[in-house]
């Protein structure tokens, strides 16, 4: 039936002129064609399409068949039939009006979800390329539209992150990326071959540029790369990255140019309007690019080898800041890698403090603190810490000083403060050993810094447990200073400030310790007395994790916690006692010397 219907429409249209085709003709043709396919009359349909006399009809109406044909290709398992459908597809691509065909194909690409996305894309990329090449005008627009549609679909796919995942390529992302490069290559060649650089050509370059930037963000921003070795040859995402960067270079945006243009207010691509892109998204792409070049070494040989290491650090700091603002491990870990790569180029103590006036030079260490304290992954936390220490090592003295102040004021974390205080102690140590005293870690500047260290944030009511790391570090620093700096020398200015330190730090610490110990001892006594009775939960607040309420801490555990708190207090107290002992010894001996002289 369907075949007859089709043939009758064909007969009627064969005698008509093209412009006389009516809308209902299109509709009937499509319906009939669809029916033929549904009912399996492949051969007859093929015959109709191949018939020379039907050329004009097919040219105008054929594109409607693309959808049904493609769907059959995806779902049909019979080899024979598949071959025929492929043939049909080829014919339609050859014969039909490219403009409409393009839209038809793109619609098909936009349709699916899940694992079908890659299937359709892999199927249609080649026909799509052929169709676009047939267009005579506005090619750039079509290229842009195609790339944009395909990219939107690919951005829905999860990015594989382990070697196994990359190899199995469940969702086909890697395969698609490879195919997409092949799809794009001829257009890049066209854009670069055109010596005249007409307006149309410029538009083509613009579309390619947009596509490259989008790709840098997705999938390349989150992609994990295999170790650089022989394996690297087979890494599909690395190849993809390599090609994209190659495209950028070919269309006039080689990476070295971007480095030298860094800092210019007006970027060369400002005039482009990225539809979904805002400045921020562009920042992601550029950061991704910097990572790929410096850490993965892709086309790093294109960089002129005359750039100063401090300029490279300055250039990369902005990108590192972008990375560290993200919380996905696959993204911010790239920031850590890029920071390491940049810092290792510099010698210790060579980074001038003036660089800290650049915003990113302060937000990056603060970002590191975030990683160190909040990241669930221990390896990454340790790396964050290592990077912070590396950064500190590279700064000059004034830089170190400024950074210490900044982090002491902003980190709000006892462990981080303890880490900084240890660094301060090291700097004082180095400074005292030099013949020429470092003015930032001795004298009045140091006193100002010590004010931030040797004090209790809430006086005697400071939570000593919460702040125990910091307090221990401060006490150790104080002990060091008392031992190392003789009262006569007073190089660090400690002895003149002793009264203030005693008032702001040592006395409140005594009080705090006494209060805390008494409090906890009372708690322990309470616990022990109540251990026979059932713990009533009315006084306690409850803790819910993942929708489940946690049981109250068993009494033995509670006791353990209380005892360990007491232990911490004892520890603090013993160091405090030692420090005061040393102070007394030193002040007594000096006063004895003084009286001795008299």
């Amino acid at each position, binding site marked *: 039936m369907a075949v007859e219907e089709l043939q009758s429409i064909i007969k009627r249209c064969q005698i008509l002129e093209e412009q006389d085709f009516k809308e209902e003709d299109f509709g009937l043709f499509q319906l009939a064609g669809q029916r033929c396919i549904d009912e399996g009359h492949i051969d007859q349909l093929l015959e109709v399409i191949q018939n020379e006399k039907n050329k004009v009809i097919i040219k105008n109406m054929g594109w409607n068949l693309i959808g049904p044909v493609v769907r059959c290709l995806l779902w049909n398992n019979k080899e024979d039939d598949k071959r025929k459908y492929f043939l049909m597809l080829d014919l339609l691509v050859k014969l039909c009006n490219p403009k409409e065909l393009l839209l038809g194909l793109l619609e098909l690409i936009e349709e699916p979800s899940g694992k079908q996305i890659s299937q359709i894309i892999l199927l249609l990329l080649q026909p799509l390329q052929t169709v676009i090449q047939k267009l005579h005008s506005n090619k750039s627009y079509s290229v842009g539209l195609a790339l944009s549609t395909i990219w939107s679909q690919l951005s829905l796919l999860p990015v594989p992150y382990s070697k196994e995942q990359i190899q199995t390529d469940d969702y086909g992302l890697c395969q698609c990326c490879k195919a997409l490069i092949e799809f794009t290559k001829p257009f890049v060649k066209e854009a670069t071959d055109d010596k005249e650089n007409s307006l149309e050509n410029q538009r083509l370059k613009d579309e390619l540029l947009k596509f490259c930037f989008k790709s840098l963000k997705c999938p390349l921003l989150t992609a994990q790369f295999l170790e650089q070795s022989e394996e690297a040859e087979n890494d599909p995402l690395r190849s993809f990255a390599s090609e994209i960067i190659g495209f950028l270079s070919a269309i006039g945006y080689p990476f070295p140019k971007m480095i*030298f243009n860094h800092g210019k207010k007006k970027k060369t691509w400002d005039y482009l309007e990225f539809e979904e892109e805002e400045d921020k998204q562009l920042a992601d792409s550029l950061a991704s690019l910097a990572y790929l070049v410096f850490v993965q070494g892709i086309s790093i040989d294109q960089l002129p080898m*005359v*750039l100063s290491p401090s*300029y490279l650090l300055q250039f990369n700091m902005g990108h590192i800041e972008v990375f560290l603002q993200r919380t996905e491990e696959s993204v911010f870990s790239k920031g850590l890698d890029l920071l390491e790569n940049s810092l290792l180029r510099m010698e210790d103590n060579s980074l001038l403090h003036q660089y800290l006036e650049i915003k990113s030079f302060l937000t990056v260490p603060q970002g590191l603190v975030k990683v160190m304290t909040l990241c669930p992954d221990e390896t990454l936390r340790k790396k964050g810490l290592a990077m912070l220490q590396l950064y500190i090592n590279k700064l*000059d003295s*004034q830089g170190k000083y400024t950074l210490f102040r900044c982090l002491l004021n902003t980190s709000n974390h006892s462990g981080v403060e303890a880490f900084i205080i240890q660094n301060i102690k090291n700097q004082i140590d180095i400074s005292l050993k030099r013949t020429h005293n470092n003015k930032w870690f001795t004298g009045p500047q140091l006193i100002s810094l010590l004010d931030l260290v040797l004090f209790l944030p809430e006086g005697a009511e400071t939570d000593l447990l919460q702040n125990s790391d910091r307090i221990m570090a401060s006490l150790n620093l104080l002990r060091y200073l008392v031992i190392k700096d003789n009262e006569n020398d007073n190089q660090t200015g400690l002895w003149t400030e002793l009264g203030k330190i005693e008032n702001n730090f040592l006395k409140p610490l005594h009080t705090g310790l006494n209060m805390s110990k008494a409090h906890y001892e009372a708690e322990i006594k309470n616990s022990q007395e109540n251990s026979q009775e059932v713990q009533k939960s009315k006084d306690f607040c409850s803790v819910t994790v993942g929708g489940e309420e946690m049981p109250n801490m068993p009494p033995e555990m509670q006791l353990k916690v209380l005892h360990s708190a007491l232990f911490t207090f004892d520890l603090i107290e013993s160091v405090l006692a030692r420090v005061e002992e040393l102070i007394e010894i030193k002040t007594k001996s000096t006063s004895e010397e003084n009286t001795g002289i008299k």
Partner: protein
Amino acid sequence: MAAAVPQRAWTVEQLRSEQLPKKDIIKFLQDHGSDSFLKVSKFLRALKNYKSKVNPISLMNLKINIKIFSLQRFKGTESINKVSEQVKNVKLNEDKPKETKSEETLDEGPPKYTKSILKKGDKTNFPKKGDVVHCWYTGTLQDGTVFDTNIQTSSKKKKNAKPLSFKVGIGKVIRGWDEALLTMSKGEKARLEIEPEWAYGKKGQPDAKIPPNAKLIFEVELVDID
């Protein structure tokens, strides 16, 4: 023929306090200071103002100058020829941590590069700091290995090879380049031998196979200045 020694206008305490207006001290010095003295103080001011921050340290400098020149080198007591000698020997009393590059330039020893001119330039157009320069270059290690170049050779085809363009004198490139290019005139081609301290130092540049502590040799041709 010593001129009359001018009276001390203020006590040391007055000088140390904040109350004395700078203008008065400056006027006093300008009225009574010898040419050499003024030249040195100018030099020291320039030194400190390099960061273009006017701060109490300039005032401190003037006070230090008074201390140093308490040998009563006031007007007419000496010849100006000795100025250069004294300028070299003047040291500030305060500590000098490696803060600004400018201070390093002024009290470091000889420049850590050598330049031999291969082709003379126009000797009139010299780049200033912040100008954009365009140059061709080839970089080799001491053993002759070429580690970088932007000159198109038949073997290594770089599409549309263009001269390297960048703002000179502001630290974008290694110090040897920044310093050397400021001494070159338009059209000049020179051979630079740069010590590691003004190149990539202890770290080297592994991306380019430059080992640590490598002395670098560049042939640079300055084609244009913007």
